[in-house]
């Protein structure tokens, strides 16, 4: 079973990298980009076959390591 974790800076936390990308897009002539947020995607290949258990386990991984919940939020998708 595969899982995909999307980690983003929480809403309200300034994302300087996203801002830099927004500026660069503007410089390339892409007008109308009001905001850019940059995050990361982590794909996991799991031995677990039960969807609910897999989701619970991945959430535990996010809390412990994959995300820093002081500044980041995460979303888990079981694929």
């Amino acid at each position: 079973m595969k899982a995909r974790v999307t980690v983003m800076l929480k809403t309200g936390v300034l994302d300087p990298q996203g801002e830099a990308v927004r500026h660069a897009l503007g410089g390339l002539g892409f007008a109308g980009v009001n905001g850019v947020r940059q995050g990361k995607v982590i794909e996991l290949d799991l031995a677990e076959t039960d969807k609910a258990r897999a989701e619970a386990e991945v959430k535990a991984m996010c809390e412990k390591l994959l995300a820093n919940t002081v500044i980041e939020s995460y979303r888990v998708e079981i694929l």
Partner: protein
Amino acid sequence: MKAAVVTFPGSNCDRDLAVAFERAGWDVVRVWHKDTALPEGVDVVGVPGGFSFGDYLRCGAIAAQSPIGAAVKAHAARGGYVLGICNGFQVLTEMQLLPGALMRNAGLKFVCRMLTLRVATADSAFTAGYGKGQEITVPVAHHDGNYTIGADGLKQLQDQDRIAFTYADNPNGSVADIAGILSENRRVLGMMPHPERVVDPLQGGTDGAVLFKALLGGLALA
């Protein structure tokens, strides 16, 4: 008094930190990240700067979960002293020994220069050798030193006098110009600037040596 300096793969200030402790009169032991326990009788653990585990995932995140990490947390839980510098500060926040987090510098650039720090409190074994409000010259060298914490957390740090150092001229966007903070029991210090890089006149200054000597003096009396 005994200091243990931790080395992770990618640490690069571990030897400098060990020398800074030694110069101040500490017995120093070096500890590897795979060690599961600290040597007997360690009074302070130094978590050095560098790029532990290549800064993969987040700065300090993997190091915080390493085998020695559990021993460092247990040391702090027993009331032991811990000093985290630069990447070491990031590691201590990831271990949740200190609140908040260190984000990418607001200017996105790696900042590497001497700068002026203000001693925000002299009420800790680490900062007792300075006067409150004293300005000291210490270098910074980091890409992710932009300290952030929620409004409630910041108020708690301020109310409990736990901000150890602030920048006179903020180089990274850090909230309230914070350069270093203390734990609630004032025995864990995390700071982005490098006091271990100013302990000898040949390094361009000696303002950092005061920290290591004061810590030794304070613990020897305790």
